[in-house]
């Protein structure tokens, strides 16, 4: 194990020190099914990174690999640790929320708090209790008696009271109603994130987290399809609602995606490297109404392109 840790340190030294997560050729197979097929990642510290993909894309497998919950092949460094050999020490500085339903059902809430307080040196019990005081959770009740939303609140209280460098969330709001979902992300930004932590969120409900993200990764069939910073996304893609008479002209500009709408057709264009950020989009404005595309539109376009 010592030699592996030395190896891990050597790898880490060659990568940018400002990378929170660095992976090269990360692979994971379940029998003949390749859940991860040569993933490369480079997520900087302080980023809020969205891992977007459809069901079965490999999001959960990728995130579990990052925290050592499933074995994987390839090179991997997560805040200076190789999670496959040093999961326990990694989890001192990282938190993982797999799903709202993973809290142990037979324990009382207060017992769960006591457990985390005992085993985690960076847990602030008073902070967790302050957060829980704003909810309707009766701490003497068992987790199995709580509603799904309350379980989320409890899990969030535990996570936010731990002073960590990295937070990994795997579809944290799955199955929750809109009020709990909004509350979840509000709390995450206002009470947890201070700019120094790194957050990685996986979801297939892109529109919900679009406004939070600083970085974006699209994943499909175990491969990274596309990755960028959010600022670069806005400079790199243009969406045009084209009037009917301009369809031919729009087609000639090689859109990466088109879809029909009530008012006409929407075209999505990816700008060449030299064109980005220049601000001159007159050739698009001649075709119709120009806007910044949503992440969902870019995702659908890129996914379609990757499937050929």
């Amino acid at each position, binding site marked *: 194990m010592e*030699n*592996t840790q030395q*190896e891990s340190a*050597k*790898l880490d030294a060659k990568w940018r020190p400002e990378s929170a997560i660095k992976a*090269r050729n990360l692979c994971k197979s379940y029998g003949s099914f390749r859940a991860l097929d040569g993933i490369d990642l480079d997520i900087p510290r302080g980023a809020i990174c969205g891992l977007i993909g459809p069901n079965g894309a490999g999001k959960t497998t990728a995130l579990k690999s990052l925290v050592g919950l499933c074995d994987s092949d390839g*090179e991997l460094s997560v805040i200076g640790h190789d999670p496959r050999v040093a999961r326990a020490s990694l989890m001192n500085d990282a938190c993982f929320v797999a799903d709202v339903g993973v809290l142990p059902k037979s324990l009382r809430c207060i017992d769960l708090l006591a457990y985390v307080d005992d085993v985690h040196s960076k847990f602030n019990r008073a902070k967790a209790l302050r957060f829980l005081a704003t909810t309707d959770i009766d701490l003497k009740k068992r987790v199995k008696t709580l509603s799904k939303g309350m379980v989320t609140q409890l899990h969030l209280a535990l996570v936010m009271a731990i002073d960590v460098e990295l937070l990994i969330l795997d579809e944290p709001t799955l199955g929750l109603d809109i009020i709990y979902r909004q509350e979840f992300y509000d709390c995450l930004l206002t009470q947890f994130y201070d700019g120094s932590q790194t957050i990685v969120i996986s979801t297939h409900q892109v529109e919900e987290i679009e406004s939070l993200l600083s970085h974006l990764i699209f994943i499909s069939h175990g491969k990274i399809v596309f990755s960028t910073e959010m600022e670069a996304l806005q400079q790199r893609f243009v969406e045009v609602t084209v009037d009917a008479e301009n369809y031919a002209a729009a087609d000639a500009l090689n859109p990466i995606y088109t879809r029909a709408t009530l008012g006409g057709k929407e075209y999505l264009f990816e700008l060449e490297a030299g064109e980005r950020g220049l601000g001159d989009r007159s050739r698009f404005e001649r075709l119709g109404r120009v806007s910044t595309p949503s992440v969902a539109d870019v995702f659908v376009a890129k996914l379609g392109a990757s499937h050929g």
Partner: protein
Amino acid sequence: MERIERETSQPIKLQRVLRRTLLRNKHSLFFATIALVLCVIAVEGKLTDRQGRGAQFENPFFDLEIAPDIGSSLR
């Protein structure tokens, strides 16, 4: 992306071999563990000429006869 050249030491090579064989998946690990334990039991049994003593009720510490007349006094 540049390939990162790494020195590989003997323990690392051994770990890699183990990961590809015994630690490949939970089934290989399970069978390897059981096979190892059974081999150790078999070899130890041969070396020490282990005999299977059946359940014996000899008692080196005291006599099981307590009060011979207790049965008649309770009738």
